[in-house]
């Protein structure tokens, strides 16, 4: 009886055995990468805002402190979004007639807030509090990146759980003195490891086990 397959089928069979492993491995690797891609996390994607507000200009050039606008960052869970009145503190005098500020003027006249687009959107099942992070020596730029260089703000980090845990497991790698919290130029290498450990003790930062227990973030 004739053979169903010719001799080359032997090689196809052998190659297919290898390819199953290679393809499955590749697909798995691709999955782990796609799961962390900016397509899914929104990382590095600039959000368009109703008003062309530039952090680069206001923070970088003018040197306005973060807390001038985000007033509640040291005291509450939310850092706080400035009201239009905050804008008008300056812009009733400077660039008061600029067409770029049309919407701000309108908001002020009609007493209706500007609808800013949220850039850092955490899922509802996570509990996040700005004030505790600031109080325990985590600076703005540690999570938000070089805001003073961003004309339009984008998300600097993935905001995925592994990113949160990277710090909660080793907070001493990212802490800085109280005076440097709002310093946009701060580098984590500015402190020696010994200083960090001392700082961690001074801040009374709790153990890794406490910081990584489920209910710290999922309440």
């Amino acid at each position, binding site marked *: *009886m004739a*053979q169903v*397959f010719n001799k080359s*089928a*032997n090689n196809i069979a052998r190659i297919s055995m290898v390819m199953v492993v290679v393809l499955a491995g590749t697909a798995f690797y691709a999955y782990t990468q796609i799961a962390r891609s900016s397509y899914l996390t929104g990382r590095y994607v600039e959000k368009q805002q109703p008003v062309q507000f530039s952090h680069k200009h206001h923070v970088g050039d003018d040197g306005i402190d973060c807390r001038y606008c985000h007033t509640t960052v040291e005291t509450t869970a939310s850092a706080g979004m400035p009201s239009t009145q905050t804008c008008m503190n300056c812009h009733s005098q400077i660039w008061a007639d600029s067409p770029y500020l049309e919407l701000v003027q309108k908001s002020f006249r009609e007493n209706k807030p500007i609808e800013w687009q949220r850039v850092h959107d955490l899922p509802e099942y996570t509990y996040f509090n700005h004030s505790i992070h600031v109080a325990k020596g985590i600076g703005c730029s540690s999570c938000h990146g070089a805001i003073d260089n961003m004309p339009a703000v984008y998300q600097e980090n993935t905001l*995925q*759980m*592994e*990113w949160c*845990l990277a710090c909660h497991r080793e907070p001493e790698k990212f802490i800085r003195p109280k005076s440097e919290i709002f310093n946009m130029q701060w580098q984590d290498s500015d402190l020696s490891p010994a200083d960090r450990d001392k700082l961690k003790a001074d801040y009374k930062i709790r153990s890794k086990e406490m910081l990584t227990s489920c209910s710290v973030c999922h309440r």
Partner: protein
Amino acid sequence: MQVDKELQQKLRPAMVEGEHTFASVTDKISDVTLKKRTPFHWFIGFGISFLVAQLLLFSVVWLLANGIGVWGNNQPVGWAFDIINFVWWIGIGHAGTLISAILLLLNQKWRTSINRFAEAMTLFAVACAAMFPLLHTGRPWLAAYWLFPYPNTMGIWPQFRSPLIWDVFAVSTYATVSLLFWYVGLIPDFATLRDRAKNKYYRFVYAILAWGWRGSARHWHRYEITYLILAGLSTPLVLSVHSIVSFDFAVSQIPGWHATIFPPYFVAGAIFAGFAMVLILCIPLRHWYRMQDFITHTHLVYMGKVMLATGLIVCYGYAMEAFFGWYSVAEYEVFMVKNRIWEGPYWWSYWLLILCNGLSIQLLWFKRFRESEFWLFTISVVVSVGMWLERFVIIVTSLHRDFLPSSWAMYSPQIWDWTMFIGTIGFFFTLIYLFVRFVPIISIFEVRTLLPDAHVHGHQQDFDESVLEVEYTYDRTDPPNS
């Protein structure tokens, strides 16, 4: 000599009856797949099973659309049909593995004609079982990262100290090894079907499945080694899988679950349920396909005996559960035993269980019942119901009375609990019917080794029969293609 023969038949009964040669065995089994017209009863059976399987599809869609609130699960009965059915199905699979692996290693010849479909039964039962814990999560597409350790974006691993993760490994290992074992055993038979198929497409598919098997001595040598290795791998699985399933309960501290008897008691129960299912399948099968020569009366009697033995172990387990409760002098354990057996609202389920699993099998002590196909089949069905009730009793009666009386609640299954359970039964039989139609239901080449023709040596008693399986050559050898 005549006396000797009679004695031999009594001590080691022939596992193939009737006058058979290598050719007639091959014809008889492969014709079911290749030659005979698909019988009408196949279409009826497949049709009904397939329709019932649609119920599963519908239930799953409904579940995913609405969430697991459509089930009757509540607090404190957070586990109910989903876990009852999981344990029931996974237990049924165990007989297949026992028959294929342990009986092979123990050189029990009677496994030969039932191992093929018992293994198929294992695979299909595991497929049904695996559905329940996945769907129990409510969002099975997310279950991958809850269950499997891989570098996920959460930066954490599953809880390795939880028996639930041990379960994932136990069941997936079990499914993989069972599939390999079944498939490797099928390769020589697929080659037979390939060589005998007249239809071009059949031949093409069977040729792929046979992986170029030519039946050379080298092929057989490697086959024997592989098969033994897989048997060795499967053997611990017979014990480990259901032990780990029992840890889901025993490792917790719920009264009635936290007992050391659980692993052996669950394993015995699994084999008990599995043999009941093998009997349920093989009694009609041997009639419909006229396989009485291969699945003989002796086979049925042996399986009845295994059922009796494992059933008695299970009964010992029931006795011990009650004893442990009493002996512990722990308030909650004592309450649970009383509540389960006579004081609680589910007392009827306990006594139904004792009736099905404890009393019904006592009939098997008697030759009259053990040798009657009708009674074996009936007892098997009753035992299958009983083993389902056993899981119901263990799970529901332990959970519905929580430690705090304020948390007490009743559990009653909802319509979607039932449709999903019945749906998996339809799915199981759909797969069984497809298997019967397209795969040789009995291992052709292994049955041939049981024939007198395979025992060509004069001094049969002194001869090590296992050597024959290696020496035996394939009856339709193709010219080597390399």
